């Protein structure tokens, strides 16, 4: 099962290495990982997508809790939540393809954020599934480069992960 873990971490050097090291040492998967400071500069928020059965996920959350710099954490996938990922795709576009690529980007609510004579750079935001679907939809177009931010997530409604 896929899980999205949100972790509040002391914003100290070495803290991130400890989290990543934990996953490597104990053989847990990381599908994606994003981290940045929050509105409180002493705290970073890390979003981590991982996979495993219930027992593995329970161990992961317990082991994360044991790290001294982990302040709080939540498994977002346990309740209603919103997830977003940002992707930028640079594609080769011949004159004939341009119209088609633009229409495809529009369908996915993507934006063309850079243009050269031979390329389009498209930005798409959404769930990881949607980004994958967009790549599928570009079928026939030559993709030069893709870059994805990794998943960020937040719970719906009043529920928050904060100090």
């Amino acid at each position, binding site marked *: 099962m896929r899980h999205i873990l949100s972790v509040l971490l*002391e914003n100290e050097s*070495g803290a991130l*290495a*400890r989290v990543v*090291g934990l996953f490597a*040492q104990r053989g847990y998967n990381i599908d994606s990982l994003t981290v940045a400071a929050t509105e409180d500069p002493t705290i970073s928020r890390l979003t981590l997508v991982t996979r495993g059965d219930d*027992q593995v996920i*329970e*161990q992961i959350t*317990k*082991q994360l*809790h*044991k790290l*001294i*710099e*982990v*302040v709080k954490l939540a498994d977002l996938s346990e309740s209603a939540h919103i997830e977003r990922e940002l992707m930028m795709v640079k594609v080769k576009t011949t004159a004939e393809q341009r119209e088609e690529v633009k229409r495809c980007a529009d369908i996915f609510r993507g934006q063309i954020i850079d243009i050269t004579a031979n390329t389009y750079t498209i930005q798409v935001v959404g769930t990881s599934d949607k980004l994958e679907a967009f790549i599928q939809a570009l079928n026939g177009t030559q993709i030069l480069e893709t870059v994805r931010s990794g998943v960020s997530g937040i719970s719906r409604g009043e529920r928050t992960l904060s*100090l």
Partner: protein
Amino acid sequence: MTSQNTQPELLSGGAMLIRALADEGVEYVYGYPGGAVLHIYDAMFQQHQVKHVLVRHEQAATHMADAYARASGKAGVVLVTSGPGATNAVTGIATAYMDSIPMVVICGQVMSHLIGDDAFQETDMLGISRPIVKHNMSVRRPEDIPYLVKKAFYIAQSGRPGPVVLDIPKDMTIPSQKFPYEYPKDIKLRSYNPNAKGHPGQIKKALTTLLAAKKPVLYSGGGVILGQASEELTTLARKLNIPVTNTLMGLGAYPASDPQFIGMLGMHGSYEANQVMHNADVIFAVGARFDDRVTNATKKFCPNATIIHIDIDPASISKTVNAHIPIVGLVKPVLQEMLQQLEKNQGQLDQQALGHWWQQIQQWREVHGGRYEQSAAHLKPQAVIEAVHRHTKGDAYVTSDVGQHQMFAAQYYKFDKPNRWINSGGLGTMGFGLPAAMGVKLHYPEAEVVCVTGEGSIQMNIQELSTCKQYGLNVKIINLNNGYLGMVKQWQDMNYDSRYSSSYMDSLPDFVKLAEAYGHVGIRVTKAEELEPALERAFALKDKLVFLDIHVDPTEHVYPMQIPGGAMNEMFLSKTERT
């Protein structure tokens, strides 16, 4: 005038470090100097509160600190230089980590501006030690040193204890740069709140389940010793009249001479302990972690048991074996709460069922009963341990190395008190025994301290005989010399048709002469009749380190031994018998 008196004293980073250790109540630091810690060593020289013990290899410093912690319950302190000094300490840090031993390791580091340049004696000690520490930190500003020392001790000693590494770049300790010194009284971290008391509802549920049991067993581990709860454990077990088994790490938490004690469990546990576990209907696990050396194949583990598990570390609960009633908390307050609840409701087990259970246990006891083959040709290692037990009246601190001798010590030295049995259970570190004995002897100079070792293990830190001479650490070394890496040989006998691939140690030194060369007494024992007089003499020599080189049966195996891949109660009982 008064305002001047209350001004904090100005100290250099190095002096602050030493003062902070003194304020923390540290008496001894074990270490080895080098470039990156010279300022600190100079600060050490200029005061008399904190004493330094110079080992001969940094690994020994860590084991000394570790064993001091195991015997006293307080964190041991190590001081090493950057680079090779720090990497030499790694095995000892990992040893402490695996057994949850509180320890503070102070490592020098190259100057801040050189970090990352592959400077002379630079290693990324924070990176190297990360997977084997409870926490590690580096000093960025000298004025933070008192706070970081406090934090290091707090983390090392609270909750589930463990080693903490403090990395100090050389420029943090420059003698001429002084800062106001104040040692924090206490400390609170928003991200770390270790001292759980246990949920009263869960404790009640646990007690109800335990009282309803017909075939209960109390399985206790190192957590009871670390949590200083053996009194509570013993009281509770006696009140309920239930059988008690201890893990390798938990020996002494319940008195071995008590009739309710059924021995150690696990790979080389007693026949009765492993049978009791396998057939139990309720397993009450206290400060134990269902390690693979205990459970054997987890799929076949104790099929009929409801498991109650007390542990301070939630990650230890349901990690390898699912716990039905988990209780997260320090064992001492949880057991106290349990005793109170028991007092209140005056509960008792079904006495008839319990009677049947004890009858069954009695039958199991008679099956193997710790017997071992007698031999006319050779001294038996088990007999040596029994003799050492007699000569020390069962009251010594016993440290060990790793191998067959370790298991014989665990099986045949009947520990009646906690903190007396000091061995590397989790990591299984050969080379632990001698420095561990030194760490205990330094703090308990009046106590009898015995190191049970093998001719393989002792050579991993033999150089410490020199440190023993320097500090008058008169431990007794019982070298169970079987001429082999015995435990390796045993596996080769059992699984590799006795192909002794690199398990034969030829060209062994003359240990008697070696001991003498270091200024100690060496005694060799090769025949059974020499044993008693040799022990007599050794223990009478109070102010001497005595190295007893005792030649024991090279063919002996450790039994019982669980059959790999089997259930807890599937065991070899001797070279020719199995369950």
